């Protein structure tokens, strides 16, 4: 990020009051692989399809769902490398919070700080916005929580949400299937069904990734 005389923000307003770069970033997200999340009464589940460019790729080396702290996990739609950078920054911020306050970072705080980073990149000189939307799933003493963070830096709390290629179909499906006091197992089942809706080809444990958080744990399974 430059301090030189030539670094000015690349994200500027259009005459209609929109930030065109952010619109483009959202388009990049919209052409990424579908991912979704569902908040149950006793946990959260996030899932994504993991379509690899070729059968020769070693799928065990690709991790689209990452954990930020032992009780917070995240999934994305959009550009993988941008996701990696954000995960690294978020992990460091969670660790710094823990060093300072000696308590595990609450989900809202981590989401807020990650969103602040994403916003920074829409206003600083010489950088472009991130081309990812994140779904952050966590369980802290406020209960299970699911947040979506957009390239603009805005974040929303969802009961169930989807993003990526198949977003409209997935959201319609979720709206129909979502029940208020859903249990975690039902939520996992619903998540897989929703993924199957827009899936091209045969769905199997090798081409989807699921992250589940119950009470204070985050573990993944394919």
């Amino acid at each position: 990020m430059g301090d030189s005389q030539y670094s000015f923000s690349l994200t500027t307003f259009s005459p209609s009051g929109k930030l065109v770069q952010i619109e483009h970033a959202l388009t990049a997200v919209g052409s990424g692989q579908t991912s979704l999340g569902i908040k149950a009464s006793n946990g959260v589940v996030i899932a994504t399809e993991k379509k690899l460019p070729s059968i020769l790729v070693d799928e065990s080396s690709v991790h689209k769902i990452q954990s930020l702290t032992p009780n917070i996990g995240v999934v994305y739609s959009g550009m993988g490398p941008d996701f990696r950078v954000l995960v690294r920054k978020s992990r460091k911020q969670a660790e710094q919070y823990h060093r300072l306050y000696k308590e595990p970072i609450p989900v809202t705080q981590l989401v807020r700080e990650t969103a602040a980073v994403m916003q920074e990149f829409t206003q600083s000189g010489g950088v472009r916005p991130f081309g990812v939307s994140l779904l952050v799933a966590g369980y802290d003493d406020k209960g299970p929580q699911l947040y979506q963070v957009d390239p603009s830096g805005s974040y929303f709390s969802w009961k169930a949400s989807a993003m990526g290629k198949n977003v409209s179909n997935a959201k319609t499906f979720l709206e129909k299937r979502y029940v208020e006091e859903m249990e975690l197992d039902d939520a996992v089942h619903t998540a897989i069904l929703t993924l199957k809706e827009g899936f091209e080809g045969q769905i199997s444990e090798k081409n989807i990734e699921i992250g589940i958080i119950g009470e204070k744990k985050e573990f993944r399974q394919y």
Partner: protein
Amino acid sequence: MDNANIGIPPKGGFSFDLCRRNDMLSKKGIVPPPSYRKTGTTIVGLIFQNGVILGADTRATAGSIVCDKNCEKIHYMAPNIYCCGAGTAADTEAVTDMVSSQLQLHRYHTGRESRVVTALTLLKSNLFKYQGHVQAALVLGGVDATGPHLHTIYPHGSTDTLPFATMGSGSLAAMAVFESKYREGLTKEEGISLVCEAICSGIFNDLGSGSNVDICVITKGDKEYLRNHQLPNPRTYISSKGYSFPKKTEVLLTKITPLENQVEVIEVGDSMEE
């Protein structure tokens, strides 16, 4: 305003300017250096059959006063690595905290269990950077994928790798016990009792060590933190019921003698002049 300096970012790192001033002041005897809480300590570690056992006493001193009778000197670094600290209490806690944080981030990035040598290198680089001003003498032990490891780290940043180690003011007393009784292939019970003996030797023979014995046993995939494993110096507190004396003083005789008020009036002939 010097335009040439605007573009240069501020230099990072520790500024040693005040250390020279402090040295000068203490040499001149003008200002006594502030006293800080030291852990004049006995800390030990040994490698046994299946892993590592760390032990420490629990007394913290500020000068010649015991300021904490039951402090924790065995610090968490990683699920499979613990570190005992001797020296200035604030220094040992801050440096172990910082490296523990760095190890956690490293674990996230690599997806693997932390190694003892990683913790060792992070600690020694940090202590060397501060040229011995961070007064932390540490005994670092843990079990990782390459086996059990035990290291000592000195305040200036040098390290040793040993099968058994002691640090702190009570280190000589504890080392005497180790040197005569340590052998390879100890079982867990033998190891714990040897560590207890060594710490007790430090507790009873060194003024800077005292109170209780803390033990930490680390094996592959498991750790046991035995806080206050032995309490050789039980502290009896004042009973909350208060004191009561069984036999009160008996009253044998009551005699009251009023004192007569004697007021003498002295005539002063001359009034005071001036």
